[in-house]
């Protein structure tokens, strides 16, 4: 993994600081919109671990996003668990196990097959949720309450408050980012680099590449589960749309739009795409037409995403650091 350029680090810290104070200055609607962006950012970041860092193009990543939502709903309704401290770890475990299982099957294939197989498996879950009465069918399931956060019987924060929830989501985003950075900086991350750059050679060096890919798939599925948990808790409902392939497709668009293999790129991508959708939806009910044109334009004109724009240079001038050293190479080349 290549380190974040120092100039960009400055920008990132400024952005996080802005995000932290932002709810104090805007209307409630924008706090909710920002929470939605954060959820998509976590989700897209988890997909970036696969697409950008491992070169596994999954078109079924929504499977874990939706699964987390349904897991939370079922835990609440059938087991009566409402606490954040129990539902969140259990949901993540469910997602990790599911990702292990799906990965074990999907990673048997590669390239274009992998795309189709992940899509088909996610679609299977979609139809299962859609056709199962116990899961609410196409209506989905309501969450009776937000997860509670009590410590020794005292509520330390209240997720029913929208601003508190926003900070909760922001904390999840920062935590996901740091965990992903840690994973990528570890020896395991180096091995993943090797698998991506030249899998036959990594295999020749004695790495069981299959295991590395599966481990990464599991990690990515778990982080996607975190996004799904936060997303479902925010909406107070989980329905088959959480699992739909439009959710997966949207995440893939965000990863490319932001710039894959950067982790912070997908955050920028989520911001741009969700804001664009919000604006377009305010103008016309046929806003998806614009999104379609926008996606095609990005693919044709900006294939390496926002992160490839010379923001680093700009920031370098701003912070007076050696931005010229900005690594121009995309991760595939290191």
């Amino acid at each position: 993994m290549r380190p974040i350029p120092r100039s960009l680090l400055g920008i990132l810290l400024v952005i996080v600081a802005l995000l932290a104070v932002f709810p104090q200055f805007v209307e409630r609607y924008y706090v909710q919109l920002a929470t939605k962006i954060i959820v998509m950012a976590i989700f897209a970041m988890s997909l970036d671990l696969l697409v950008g860092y491992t070169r596994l193009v999954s078109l079924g990543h929504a499977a874990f996003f939706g699964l987390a939502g349904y897991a939370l709903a079922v835990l609440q309704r059938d087991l009566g668990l409402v606490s954040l401290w129990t539902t969140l770890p259990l949901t993540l475990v469910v997602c990790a196990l599911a990702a292990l299982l799906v990965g074990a099957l999907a990673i048997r294939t590669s390239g274009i097959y992998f795309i189709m197989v992940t899509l088909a498996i996610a679609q299977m879950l979609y139809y299962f949720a859609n056709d199962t009465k116990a899961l609410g069918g196409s209506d989905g399931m309501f969450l009776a309450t937000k997860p509670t956060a009590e410590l020794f019987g005292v509520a330390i924060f209240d997720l029913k408050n929208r601003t508190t929830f926003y900070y909760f989501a922001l904390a999840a985003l920062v935590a996901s980012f740091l965990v992903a950075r840690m994973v990528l900086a570890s020896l395991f991350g180096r091995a993943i680099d090797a698998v991506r750059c030249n899998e036959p050679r990594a295999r020749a060096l004695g790495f069981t590449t299959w295991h590395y890919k599966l481990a990464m798939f599991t990690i990515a599925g778990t982080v996607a589960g975190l996004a799904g948990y936060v997303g479902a808790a925010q909406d107070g409902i989980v329905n088959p749309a959480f699992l739909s392939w439009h959710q997966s497709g949207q995440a893939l668009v965000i990863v490319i739009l932001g710039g894959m293999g950067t982790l912070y790129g997908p955050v920028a991508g989520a911001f741009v795409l969700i804001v664009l959708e919000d604006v377009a939806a305010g103008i016309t009910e046929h806003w998806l037409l614009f999104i379609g044109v926008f996606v095609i334009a990005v693919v044709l004109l900006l294939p390496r995403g926002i992160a490839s724009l010379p923001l680093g240079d700009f920031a370098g001038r701003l912070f007076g650091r050696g931005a010229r050293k900005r690594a121009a190479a995309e991760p595939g080349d290191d």
Partner: protein
Amino acid sequence: MDVSSFLVQSLNSVQYGFLLFLVASGLTLIFGILGVINLAHGSFFMIGAYLAHWLALKTGNLFVAIALALPLSFLLGLAVERLAIGFLYARDHLYQVLLTYGLILIFNELQRILWGNDVHGVPVPALLSASIPLTEAQSYPLYRFFISIACIGVAAAMYLVIHRTKLGMLIRAGAANREMVELLGFGVKRLYALVFALGAALTAFAGMLSAPVNSVYPGMGEHILIISFVVVVIGGLGSIQGAFVGAMLIGFVDTFGKVFLPEAASLSVYAFMAAVLLWRPQGLFGARPA
């Protein structure tokens, strides 16, 4: 299950299998020759069905509608290839997925603008509206036979074109070695455009045929797209033969799954795909990757 209902379900399976074959063969042809994964393939199915519905309403005859809609969908395929897909031959599959995903959003929205969100039925042509009695209680709609026969006709024509004509020879050669065909002085660009448009027309034709049986509705393209992915994964990508076997298998698994396990009907085809993948990750007729 008695013999006659078994027969009816088998006929349904074969008819569904044939329809899937038309869609999946277009998908596999486009991948095998152009090297492009086309998510918008299902959109052509939807467009075919909506064109059939709309033109049948205007002309009052499904056959006239199909005759008009076929060249339209071929031209649409040409336009899409020239304006969008053509830029992506050298690019990673990832970008092909995204671009064709964008196309789906556009086609779905255009469908909503042009024809609205309602489900429309398409009447079966009077000529084919009869049923063939099998036993005293069971009969089989003539129109479904017509679908199977039309598909067999198209499949046979496709086989002849690919194996017996100069165009087919070029298609096969282009799939095997694009540079060599170019070096020999053939315009691969035009060939690719033609193959893409033919694949689009093939799928649209399947949509037109199925319109009277399944009616037309928003989102129909995505459902068929994902099922044809399953077909292609099972059969092996790039293999027409594999597409045929995969389509028939899915036709039977889906139809009989609905009869025997109605509560798990939507899962049966995916479970079947998972089983095939465990056994042969490259599909039944796919070449083992190096």
